[in-house]
C-alpha cells in the first residue's frame, strides 16, 4: 500500500518536473540561473550572506535591463549544508534547464556538486568554497575567492617586499587545516623570495598559553611574525607576545577580522601596527566597494561580510561572462568565464588557465586601534 503511495508521489513529481521542463523551453524572454546555498542549518550564516550578495547583483543587473536583453530568473535551492542534498539540488536545477549555477558555499558540498557538474559541462562559479580540490574536476568550475595557501603567499610577498623583512617567524595551529595551509605556503614563499624562516612553531587546539613558543620565537629576533589563526586566539597570542617583549611586526590572515572586538579597549595596543589580509575592506574608498556597501545595507539592513561581497562578485562575474558570450550555450559561457577580467568588490579578478582567480588581496593595517586599508596587492 505504502509502496503504491510512494510510487504515486514519484510519478506526480516526475510529471511536475516534465511540466516545468516544458515551461523552460517555451519561455524565451528570461535566462535561468541556478543557485545552491545552505539557507538553513549549521552553516546558514554563510549561505544566507553569499545568497544575499548574489541576489543583490542580479537585481541590479535586471534593473539595468538584464543580460542579452533578457531578465535573469534566479532559481535558488537550499541544501542545508549537506553534500547529498546539494547534489539533489543540482539535479533539480539541471532538469529546469538553468544555463549556469552560482554555488555552492562551503567546500564539501561544492566538491560533490562539482563532480556532477563537470560531467554535464555546466558552467559553475562558487563564491566562497576555498578547498583546493573544488576547481580540479573540470574546466567548467570557477571560484571568486582566493585559496588558503594564497593568503600565505600574499603575506609572504608583502613581508619580504613591502616590509623588507629578512628573518621571519611563524606560529600556527597544528590541528587546523586552514592555519596549517597558510603557514606552509607562507614558509615556502618566503624562502623562495630569499628571506629566512628563523622560527616555525606550532600550538594545539584550545591552547591558551603561548608564552613558551613566543619566548623561543623572540630568541631568534625575527623582523616579522606570521600567525594564521582566528581572532580569539590572536587576542591571546598578541597579548602574550607583547608580554614576552616581541617587537616583530605581526602578520595575519582573514581569520584576524574581528580581533579588535576580542580585545578590551585598554589592550588594543597589542595588535597596533599589525597587518592582515582580507577579501575586501569596508574602509576601501573605491566607488564599487562604497556602492556595494550602501546598496547592501539599504536592501538587507545590515553590514555585508566577506561572504556577501564574494556572493555579489561571483554573480557579477557570471552575468558579465554570459553577456560577453553573446549566447547561453554552455561552452561559450565557460570560455567567456575563463577570459574574465573583472574589477569587483573583493578586488580585481581574472583567471589564468585554471578556475582559481588571480586576484588582489586587501592588506589591512591596525592603526590607532582601528582597521585601515593599507594597500591592495597581488601575490607573484
Amino acid at each position, binding site marked *: 500500500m505504502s509502496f503504491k503511495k510512494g510510487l504515486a508521489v514519484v510519478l506526480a513529481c516526475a510529471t511536475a518536473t516534465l511540466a516545468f521542463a516544458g515551461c523552460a523551453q517555451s519561455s524565451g524572454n528570461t535566462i535561468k540561473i541556478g543557485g545552491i546555498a545552505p539557507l538553513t542549518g549549521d552553516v546558514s550564516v554563510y549561505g544566507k550572506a553569499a545568497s544575499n550578495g548574489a541576489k543583490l547583483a542580479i537585481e541590479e543587473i535586471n534593473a539595468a535591463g538584464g543580460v542579452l536583453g533578457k531578465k535573469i530568473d534566479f532559481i535558488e535551492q537550499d541544501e542545508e549544508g549537506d553534500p547529498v542534498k546539494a547534489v539533489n539540488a543540482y539535479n533539480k536545477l539541471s532538469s529546469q534547464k538553468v544555463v549556469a549555477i552560482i554555488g555552492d558555499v562551503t567546500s564539501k558540498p561544492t566538491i560533490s556538486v562539482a563532480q556532477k557538474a563537470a560531467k554535464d559541462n555546466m558552467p559553475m562559479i562558487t563564491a566562497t568554497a576555498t578547498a583546493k580540490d573544488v576547481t580540479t574536476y573540470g574546466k567548467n568550475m570557477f571560484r571568486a575567492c582566493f585559496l588558503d595557501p594564497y593568503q600565505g603567499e600574499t603575506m609572504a610577498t608583502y613581508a619580504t617586499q613591502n616590509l623588507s623583512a629578512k628573518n621571519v617567524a611563524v606560529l600556527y595551529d*597544528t590541528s587546523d587545516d586552514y592555519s596549517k595551509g597558510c603557514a606552509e605556503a607562507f614558509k615556502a614563499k618566503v624562502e623562495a623570495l630569499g628571506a629566512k624562516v628563523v622560527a616555525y*612553531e*606550532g*600550538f*594545539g587546539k*584550545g*591552547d*591558551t*598559553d603561548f*608564552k*613558551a*613558543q613566543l*619566548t*623561543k620565537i*623572540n*630568541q631568534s629576533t625575527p623582523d616579522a611574525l606570521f600567525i594564521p589563526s582566528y581572532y*580569539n586566539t590572536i*587576542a*591571546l597570542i598578541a*597579548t*602574550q607576545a607583547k*608580554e*614576552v*617583549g616581541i617587537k616583530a611586526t605581526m602578520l595575519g590572515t582573514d581569520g584576524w577580522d574581528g580581533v579588535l*572586538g*576580542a*580585545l*578590551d*579597549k*585598554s*589592550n588594543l*595596543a*597589542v595588535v597596533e601596527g599589525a597587518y592582515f589580509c582580507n577579501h575586501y575592506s569596508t574602509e576601501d574608498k573605491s566607488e564599487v566597494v562604497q556602492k556595494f556597501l550602501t546598496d547592501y545595507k539599504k536592501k538587507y539592513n545590515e553590514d555585508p561580510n566577506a561572504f556577501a561581497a564574494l556572493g555579489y562578485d561571483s554573480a557579477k562575474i557570471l552575468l558579465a561572462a554570459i553577456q560577453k558570450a553573446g549566447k547561453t550555450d554552455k561552452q561559450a559561457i565557460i570560455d567567456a568565464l575563463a577570459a574574465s577580467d573583472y574589477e569587483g568588490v573583493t578586488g580585481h579578478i581574472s583567471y589564468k588557465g585554471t578556475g582559481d582567480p588571480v586576484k588582489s588581496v586587501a592588506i589591512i593595517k591596525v592603526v590607532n586601534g582601528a582597521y585601515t586599508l593599507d594597500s591592495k596587492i597581488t601575490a607573484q
Partner: protein
Amino acid sequence: MDFIYQLINGLQVGSIYALVALGYTMVYGIAKLINFAHGDIIMVGAYIALLAVGSMNLNIWVALLVSVVFCVILGVLIERVAYKPLRNSSRMSALITAIGMSLFLENLFLLIFSSNKRPFPNSFSGVAFSIGDKPISFNTLLTITISLVLMFVLWFFVQKTKIGKAMRAVSEDTAAAQLMGININTTISVTFAIGSGLAAVASVFYSSTYPLVDPYMGVMLGLKAFIAAVLGGIGSIPGAILGGVIMGIAESLTKGYISSTLADAVVFGILILVLLFKPSGLLGKNVKEKV
C-alpha cells in the same frame, strides 16, 4: 638565558595552578570531597572582576577584592546548600552533586553572559625588570610574588592559628575532632572560604595574562589544577604547591624545547609515572586501610 626565561614562564603558570590546586586539596583533606565546582569558581571570579573593572570602573585591586569577597560567599553558600546535606551520604552522591554544581554554574553564566568570549582589560601592564635584553612583565612578577605570599600566609594560618589547628584536626579524624569540641561546620566553611578566595585571586591573574573570559574557562584550568593536586598528593598543602609548580614548569619546558603539541602528554606522563611509584602523590600520606 632562554632557559631562565622559560623557567619563569613555567613558574607563572605553575603558581596559578598551585593557587587553584590549594582549593581542591584543602577541601579534599577536610571534607573528603573532590569539589568539581572549584574550577567554575575561577570563572565566576573572572566575570565579577570583569564587571567591577568594566562596568563600574573600579581599580583592578578593588575589583580583585570584590571578586574575592563574592567568591568566598559563593563558596560557603555552595557548601551549605549543596554539600552539607550530603555530608553523611556516600562519597559518590557528593561527587555527583559537585559535578552538578559545576554544570549549574557554567550554564547559569552561559545564560547571563552568552557563550561569546569577553575581553579582559589590560590590568598590570609594564615591564618590571629585564633579564639580559628580555623583559619580565609586571604581570608575571606580580602573579609569582602574590602567589608565594598567599601560600606563606596560608601555611602560617594552618600551622599557627587556632582555626588552622582545628582544620588539621578535622582532616586527621573528623569524629575525634568533634569529640574534642571542634565545630565541624565552621571549620568546613572556613576551608571552602579560603579555597574560593584563592581561586578568585588566581582568576584575576589568569585573566590578565590570558585576557578572554567565557563560561567554560574554568574547565581546563580546574582540571589541570586538580591534576596538580593529585600529583603533589591530594590533601597535602605543600603537595598542591609543588604539584602546580612542577606542572607549570614541565609544560613550559616541553613547549620550549621538545614540542608544543606534546606539552599535555608530558604532564600526564609525569602524573602516570608518579602515581605508579607513589600512588598517594609526591607528598601525600600513605593511609593504610583498616580491615
